[in-house]
């Protein structure tokens, strides 16, 4: 059995003033294997964040089930670390205290020294040495998000959920953090579920890319398997012949097919179709 199973997930919001309920998404089915890095791409409003919140246990679905490690997810848990879109650091705590707060939540019996050394390890991992005693307000956007990442990794969860963590960062900073994330994930073999709007980010980081159709009644239409070599890097991956095949497939989906599926021009699949656009023969 796979590590994470999502079955028939559905979310509705009550309609305004007696109108019909709004079905955000319906019949969402997918699986995740241990150590897999999955990115989910789709237009705003299709319910990506809601799916992530359901996986985190922060929101209750209107229907369907989520199982992790054979047990149903019914609420938030230290087994699932979350990196929030808005970093969600506590402004009255320093960088070190923010991470230590999480560490102490996971291991309440640890001594001060144990906590300090564990926290330092993760500060080093995201290259924040020297900023330990700064308050979030004194940090740049990229540094704040690094703290958010370090806090989530520090509790060593079974799965990591990232809600478009680098969306608000400039391209240069985003590139650097992506590299760090690749490095950390390779070291820790963390299972990751990440929302992104950035197609290149998805190709760089993900083993599988979930493509979501537009809402309402959005579905995961396709699962794109990333067939590029594991050791790809941000600086060289665009020379790989597979890169543009995958990228074009993703962009075609976002600009045309996401809408076509929502409007019924294209058939809505009951289960996501697995595709490998990287291995398709080039149309000559």
């Amino acid at each position, binding site marked *: 059995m796979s590590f994470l199973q999502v079955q028939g997930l559905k979310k509705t919001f009550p309609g305004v003033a007696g109108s019909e309920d709004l079905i955000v998404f319906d019949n969402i089915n997918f699986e995740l294997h241990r150590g897999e890095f999955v990115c989910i791409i789709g237009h705003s409003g299709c319910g990506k964040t809601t799916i992530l919140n359901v996986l985190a246990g922060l929101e209750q679905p209107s229907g369907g089930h989520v199982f992790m490690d054979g047990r149903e997810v019914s609420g*938030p848990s230290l087994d699932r670390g979350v990196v929030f879109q808005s970093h969600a650091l506590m402004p009255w705590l320093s960088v070190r205290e923010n991470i230590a707060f999480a560490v102490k*939540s996971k291991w309440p019996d640890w001594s001060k020294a144990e906590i300090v050394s564990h926290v330092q390890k993760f500060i080093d991992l995201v290259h924040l040495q020297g900023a330990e005693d700064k*308050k979030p307000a004194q940090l740049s956007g990229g540094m704040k998000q690094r703290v958010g990442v370090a806090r989530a990794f520090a509790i060593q969860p079974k799965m990591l959920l990232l809600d478009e963590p680098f969306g608000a960062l400039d391209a240069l900073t985003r590139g650097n953090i992506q590299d760090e994330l690749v490095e950390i994930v390779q070291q820790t073999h963390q299972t990751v579920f990440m929302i992104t709007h950035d197609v290149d980010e998805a190709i760089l980081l993900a083993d599988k890319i979930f493509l979501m159709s537009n809402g309402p009644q959005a579905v995961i239409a396709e699962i794109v398997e990333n067939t590029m070599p594991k050791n790809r890097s941000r600086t060289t991956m665009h020379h790989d012949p597979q890169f543009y095949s995958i990228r074009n497939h993703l962009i075609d989906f976002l600009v045309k097919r996401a809408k076509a599926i929502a409007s019924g021009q294209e058939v809505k699949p009951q289960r996501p179709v697995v595709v490998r656009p990287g291995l398709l023969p080039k149309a000559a």
Partner: protein
Amino acid sequence: MTALERLRPLALSLIILGLIFGIWALATMGGSKGQVVDDEYAKLVGAAAASGQKSAFPTPGDFLEKLGGHLADPFYDRGTNDKGIGIQLAYSIARVLSGFFLAAAVAIPLGFMIGMSRTAFAALDPFIQVLKPISPLAWMPLALFTLKDSGVSAIFVIFICSIWPMLINTAFGVASVRREWMDVARTLEVRPVRKALRVILPAAAPTIMTGMRISIGIAWLVIVAAEMLVGGTGIGYFVWNEWNNLSISNILTAILLIGVVGMVLDFVFSRLQRLVTYRD
């Protein structure tokens, strides 16, 4: 800012102070002004008493002399109606602080509860809305009747007037803790007590402290009136007693010191407020 720019407001303040004293001095100049009382009353008390030697309102010089006297020996105690102004102020401050901290001990936990539970808020809101606008002095007879002690009654009046801003601000601060921080606490499975102390309290602390600052200000306003009613000790009683003595200089001294103490209390709480305020 240059030294000159910093000196400018100071100079202006001194000029305004000088003007106040100047006008005051002009207004209180001149000696006997002839008859100062009603004709019938003049017949009764005789010419000398009726014309008076001098107006009861002191000149700035008289006032400063009196003020100097009070400040030189603030803590003497020569019986019930003759205590140093420092002692009177100390009584008032002690009453204000005990009433205020009793109120804080009730308002902050209760405000936490109201802020966290919609049910508790909805259930208590009508009571708060009705009780809040009542003048604290209106409680005085009830307090005197049930508590049977004027000193305790004064503390009760302070308690009842300082509870509302703290209660409302605590509830508001707790209710508006940012959702993302609560979500962080939830994903970290933080236990309720730790969540209250380590997440909600620091997040709401600036709002709570604002409520405390408003409360201490109101408490200091109310204590003067309360002590005028209950009598015995305190700066409010002192003012009333000096009114009966028609010693305007003493009243002015008390007014000035009430202002200074109020300013100091506000300053302390503004410092505390700054201590718990975080930059986001």
